[in-house]
């Protein structure tokens, strides 16, 4: 077994149990990303860690309220940025695999009260898909043990990461639903990798809302 980042051999305990087991993927002690789970008081709308239980500045500016609320697992610190860059820009599909258990648990903690929930990953445009060959939102959704439905599709736009804050807030809605799509009956949880200004998630929620879905939540890896 080798570390996913630096490829050094990991010390693993060899026992009778480990013989039949599948090789699980892991990081070595040096490469283990120092992620911080969001705990304590948060903004009730976007799930950002806050000193008091109030809505944050971004959420107060937002007038329409289609998305019920967003919850995130980790603080978006440098370690988290590096990890997501490894996954998204160096195209390392299995960079997030060691966090599988944690992501599943984190989701259940926030959304265990929802019944008959459907996960909808934020899509990639076909151009980006050809470059990356996988969708990181689908990857995160597949780690959660709930039914997933890729409802949404996306027109090609520039990367959100290269835009300034104002440009991001002003972008046109790139998402659309295919015609004749059968919609699920229960609540929907949108899944994405990171919630920065929330524009992407709100665009996606808008499209679903117009199609007639009333309960929309979202869950992201980082905030």
């Amino acid at each position, binding site marked *: *077994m*080798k570390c*996913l980042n630096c490829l050094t051999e990991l010390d693993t305990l060899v026992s009778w149990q480990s013989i039949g087991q599948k090789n699980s993927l892991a990081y070595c002690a040096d490469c283990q990303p120092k992620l911080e789970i969001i705990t304590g008081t948060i903004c009730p709308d976007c799930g950002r860690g806050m000193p008091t239980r109030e809505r944050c500045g971004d959420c107060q500016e937002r007038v329409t309220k289609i998305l019920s609320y967003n919850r995130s697992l980790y603080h978006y610190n440098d370690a988290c940025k590096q990890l997501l860059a490894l996954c998204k820009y*160096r*195209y390392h599909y*299995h960079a997030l695999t060691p966090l599988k258990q944690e992501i599943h648990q984190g989701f259940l903690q926030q959304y265990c009260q929802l019944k008959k929930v459907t996960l909808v990953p934020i899509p990639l445009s076909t151009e980006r898909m050809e470059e990356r*060959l996988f*969708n990181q939102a689908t990857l995160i959704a597949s780690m959660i043990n709930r039914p997933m439905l890729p409802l949404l599709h996306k027109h090609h736009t520039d990367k959100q990461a290269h835009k300034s804050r104002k440009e991001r807030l002003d972008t046109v809605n790139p998402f659309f639903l295919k015609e004749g799509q059968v919609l699920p009956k229960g609540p929907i949880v949108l899944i994405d990798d990171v919630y920065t200004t929330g524009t992407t998630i709100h665009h996606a929620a808008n499209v679903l809302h117009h199609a007639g879905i009333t309960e929309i939540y979202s869950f992201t890896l980082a905030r």
Partner: protein
Amino acid sequence: MLKKLDQSIRTLNQQIDRNIMRGHASMKSRSQQMIQLFKHHQPVLTSIRENDRRNNRPSHQSSDILLNKEPVVHEEVTQDDTYLLLDGLLVTKDRLSSLKVKGDQWNVAVNVDTFPAITQKYVFKRCERCLNEDSTLFLFFPCGKCHKTDWYCLNCLTYGRITTCQTLYHLRVPARKIKSLETGFQFTSTLTPHQQQASDRLAKAIKTGERHLLIHAVCGAGKTEMLFHGINDALKSGKRVAVATPRQDVIKELLPRFQAVFTSVQIVCQYGGSDDNSKQAWLTLCTTHQLIRYKAAFDVLIIDEVDAFPYHHDQSLIKQSKRALKGTGTFIYLSATPRQALVKKRYPTCFVPVRYHGHPLPVPEAYFTRFKNTPLPRNIKEAIIHQRENNRQLLLFVATIKQANTLLPYLQTTFKNLTIEAVHASSDERKQHIDQFRLTTIDVLVTTTILERGVTFPSVDVFVLQADHDVFDEAALVQIAGRAGRSKNDPTGSVHFYFETYTKAIRKAIKAIKQMNALGEKL
């Protein structure tokens, strides 16, 4: 047969075009007609493939010609140097399309071989770019483009991901005329008789096209100077040369020396994070990792410090360097401490046991020291005080980065009148500190094994703390001892090993240095 087929395709195309103009046929019928034509010629195609198989040529070449419709015409064309230098590049699709824009003579000048990026035989996979065959370094993922389970190689992920559904392109530019290169050779300093001997041997090996040559020269024998004449001859006879070494610091130090000697040659210097990585030249200086970009590209490949980490134990690096060399090319290994595995291969060897100034190597002195209670034991402290009486600088080697970081504040508090800094692989000011040390603004430099080889400081003393640590093997200790007394003006220097247990490596290193000195005296 091929020409016939090509002609018939063309006439068919013209016919269909005429039909379309009249409004008789749609695009669909065109494709159907094409399929019929190919069915008609099926026996011809299969016979061509069989012929190829008999001649041991991969079949995709012939199919390439068919798909291109216009077979590559071999005419006498004026070739640019830019095209000639593309010879032997191994690229992915994105890079190929960016290269293709360069000119319209592309199809004539460059032959492109294609092959799948990851091949599989039974259950054993192999990345065709980094030649990695370790099955634990291949991971699978659901591909969003071809909707199959694809594999990707972890070993070369830093150079861009390689997946099963990708193809690799090998560019070949056959040179029609051998062109000699203006080198602007400026190398005036005279070589010692031993250096001259080695230099001649090397030039002969390159000229006659020997496959392997090992030059075994002690630390500070002037290995780089021995290379210049041989490389000059090779460049003049139109051969392409690469000098590779496992260490980045060594390459960075070699570059100005090469630039001073070969004044009119463009030299490309490639290492992780350099700007030259997408360029090609007749003389390439690179780390061994960068050879991943080439296949059958060089006529002469010189590998400096072959015994250094990670080259000596990374099989895929060794395979890559073998691939980068042409079938008729010459391998030249340079080392002061060749490993057993290399010595056992019994390649023709040229041995230089004397330093260029003729003085013997400083023999290390080993002292027993306890490191249990303090990072800086008393006898080392006294030795440093004693050492400061002469005006040499001091290199303190430690085993780990952690040790360097704990030792530095101790030293800075005990010796307040000295400037002391530490360098290691992950320190940000690494280059800056080394430059300062070279300018003698830093008195004492604490370092990990990154400065163990290839670097030259004019007059230093060397202390090794915890010389019994695993990272200090025999080769490393001999190399470290070789840092002292490298200049002509100050050919001596003291080397101290401080150990808790007298290891085999320490014993063997001291023995090897003594042996070298004895051999040098005899000559």
